[in-house]
């Protein structure tokens, strides 16, 4: 059959008519939304919010890559899944803090690296930790090791970690997290000192079988693993940035585990599709509104305190966080040393007190800008702050910025109010490190400058008495709040849904530990 394209009578007008009709027809329900996909028996399908692109722990950029690294490498100790922060043995059979600056360890004798790189030895531990602090490696994770000095190798599988000064966070954010991963010295040296997108030698309960960028990472059971066997033969990790998309995939049966949006919590509380369950975990993130104390408009402490009292946190949590998050009392989340049971300024707005403080400040006709990211949660929060501050006569103009411009605000001296959110690891040291005088112009956007705060930050890291340490961090947060530069909002929450066939293994903040995932019986 010959088609005469030149005679095809499809003019622009006819095309417009046809396209309009087609568009209208496409809006009709097609009944595809409820398709469910069958799941293979030994395959666990999980969602990550990003793609794990780098297999070098020294250059890991965070949780997404650590979820894979924690499955294919071993550490001396690993986080324990559950409700409270703690650790358990992994590659170590013994680990002990013999004095504030020395930690002795002994390795298991049954862990080997793939690709013929032999058994794991204390030399591998030494190499893995020392290369992170070596300036030549240029690791972004070097600060996590704090005053780490070196590792003394005392036997084939024995050694001592040596610190320059006491460092309590080594047990909470160094050894069980990114910087604790042990790589094979021989394999890395054979690869020229750097691991790229592919692991050079693995030792964990899983091996990375394949990686299709932005599509899927597949982990398969390590046949040579001698430890407790993982429950799942295969773990498929799908990078899905958008939570709405992940929820649809979960409900269609394409995923077994995913974090969901706070807006969906209410719906999932009423019932999770396909017999699944909802797990609600607290999050370590902290969200706050900061005030640049060096800006001429905000140098008056009474004005800043008036603003603190005029922001109604419960309204923000209701509208922007769907009532699924609790108010924050500071920068340290519940469950961590130094968490304050309550803030100095109550979460509820007190407009009378705010008006009184504003009158005492002597400031009139106050107009301020509030910078925020272009995400609905933040723009919603910003609009509530705008509306509540208007009640005491303060006019706020909301500046919405895309992420590049927003995260470059550190050296912006003209910044006035800013809505901010920082990530966190499970140690208070990590939280206070961004608000020291040294961080002014970098991450201390409020330009909060307190010598007492700085001293607490420096001494608390070395304090091994847990109660004393907690007290110090509580005082540090009091100082932040008393300055009037901060209005703490929330630590958010981590709601996770999982299918009926999975027993998830989650850290207390809701992040996955794949190697400990079980099968529901």
């Amino acid at each position, binding site marked *: 059959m010959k088609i005469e394209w030149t005679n095809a009578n499809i*003019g*622009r*007008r006819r095309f*417009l*008519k046809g396209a*309009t009709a087609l*568009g209208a027809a496409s809006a009709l329900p097609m009944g595809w939304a409820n398709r469910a996909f069958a799941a293979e028996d030994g395959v666990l399908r999980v969602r990550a919010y990003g793609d794990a692109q780098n297999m070098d722990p020294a250059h890991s950029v965070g949780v997404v890559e650590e979820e894979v690294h924690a499955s294919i490498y071993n550490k001396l100790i690993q986080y324990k899944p559950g409700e409270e922060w703690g650790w358990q043995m992994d590659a170590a059979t013994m680990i002990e803090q013999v004095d504030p600056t020395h930690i002795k360890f002994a390795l298991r004798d049954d862990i080997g690296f793939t690709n013929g790189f032999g058994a794991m030895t204390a030399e591998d531990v030494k190499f893995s930790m020392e290369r992170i602090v070596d300036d030549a490696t240029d690791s972004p994770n070097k600060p996590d090791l704090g005053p780490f000095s070196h590792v003394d190798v005392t036997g084939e599988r024995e050694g001592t970690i040596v610190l320059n000064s006491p460092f309590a966070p080594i047990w909470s954010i160094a050894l069980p997290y990114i910087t604790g991963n042990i790589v094979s010295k021989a394999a890395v040296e054979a690869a020229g000192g750097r691991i790229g997108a592919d692991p050079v030698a693995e030792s964990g309960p899983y091996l990375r079988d394949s990686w299709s960028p932005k599509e899927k990472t597949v982990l398969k059971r390590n046949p040579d693993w001698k430890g407790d066997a993982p429950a799942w033969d295969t773990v498929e990790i799908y990078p899905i940035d958008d939570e*709405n998309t992940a*929820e649809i995939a979960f409900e269609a049966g394409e995923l077994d585990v995913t974090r969901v*949006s706070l*807006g*969906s919590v209410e*719906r999932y509380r009423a019932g999770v599709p396909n017999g699944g369950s909802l797990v609600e975990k607290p999050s370590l993130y902290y969200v706050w509104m900061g005030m640049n104390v060096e800006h001429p408009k905000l140098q008056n402490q009474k004005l800043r305190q008036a603003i603190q009292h005029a922001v109604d946190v419960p*309204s923000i949590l*209701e*509208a*922007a966080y*769907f009532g699924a998050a609790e108010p924050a009392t500071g920068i340290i989340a519940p469950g961590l040393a130094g968490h304050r049971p309550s803030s100095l300024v109550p979460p509820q707005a007190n407009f009378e007190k705010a008006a009184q403080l504003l009158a005492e400040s002597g400031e009139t006709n106050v107009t301020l800008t509030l910078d925020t*990211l*272009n*995400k*609905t*949660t933040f*723009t*919603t929060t*910003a*609009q*509530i702050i*705008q*509306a509540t501050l208007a009640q005491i006569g303060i006019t706020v*103009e*909301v*500046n*919405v*910025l*895309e992420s*590049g*411009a927003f995260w470059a605000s550190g050296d912006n001296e003209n910044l006035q109010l800013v809505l901010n959110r920082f990530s966190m690891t499970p140690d208070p040291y990590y939280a206070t490190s961004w608000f020291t005088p040294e961080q002014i112009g970098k991450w201390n956007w409020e330009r909060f400058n307190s010598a007492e705060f700085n001293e607490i930050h420096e001494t608390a890291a070395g304090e091994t008495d847990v109660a004393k340490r907690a007290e110090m961090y509580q005082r540090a947060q009091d100082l932040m709040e008393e300055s009037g530069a901060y209005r703490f909002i929330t630590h958010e929450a981590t709601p996770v849904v999982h299918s009926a066939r999975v027993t998830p293994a989650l850290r207390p903040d809701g992040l996955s530990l794949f190697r400990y995932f079980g099968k529901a019986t």
Partner: protein
Amino acid sequence: MEKSRSELGQIIVGVARDPLGLMGLIIVGVIVFCAIFAYWIVPYDPIAMDIKSRLQGPSAAHLLGTDQLGRDTFSRVIAGGQVALKVALPAVFGAMAIGLTLGMIAGYGPKWLDNLLMLFFDTIRSFPTVMFALAVVALIGPSLQTVVFVVMATSIPTYGRVARTQTLTLRNSEFILAERSMGASMTRILGVHMLPNIIGVLAVLAAMDIPTVIALEAGLSFLGLGVKPPTPSWGALLKDGYSLIRQTPWLVVGGGLPIILATLGFTFLGESLRDVVDPKLRKQR
């Protein structure tokens, strides 16, 4: 004057006789009416929050439900139309006025000036619109004026090139040569004799450009870089709606439907106008 009034009448009748044109005229008429009389049409203050009533579905009280801050979506859609036209009309007509002036000067003036203006137009055209918009927003901050400026700046070359081509076609016409031989000034030739012959084509182009501008404003607002909160905008509605689509799909409908209707309406109208203004084109189809 009477003649031009009858020409305008013929154009309107011509558009109204064409089914697509009539549909476009009605849609555009409704949008413009709602935008002009928004203050009287909206049932609620579009920026008044009522958090207790957030994320409600459509009801008699709230025709399109409420958003995450309890604001009436229908009122925000109507008020958003006002913002869309406040951006689109000054931007398109501003660009048309500047482009027309520069294009006629390029077409009628000396060769060096023509080359210079063409270089200027090509330079502006070489920037991808959205990237240019993002750069300007990053430099001077998001606002209604920024969006108008971006759209105007990026649209000037299109109008300028069309005006230049038309001027070049007309400059050696007998009636222009006659005017010139009688000593008419350049201003008189361009303003009195050339302008009426060019403006029709540009008006059609402007009608077709309005939906593009509305979509650009909506796109920038979708990225959170358009008008500042709490000003309602169709793009911002769409953005919030997308984030909350699992909780309340009505926000997406509220933000998306007017953009679709405005695009269709102005496109139908522009198509029909083109046919009426240039019947030769219609015969070719």
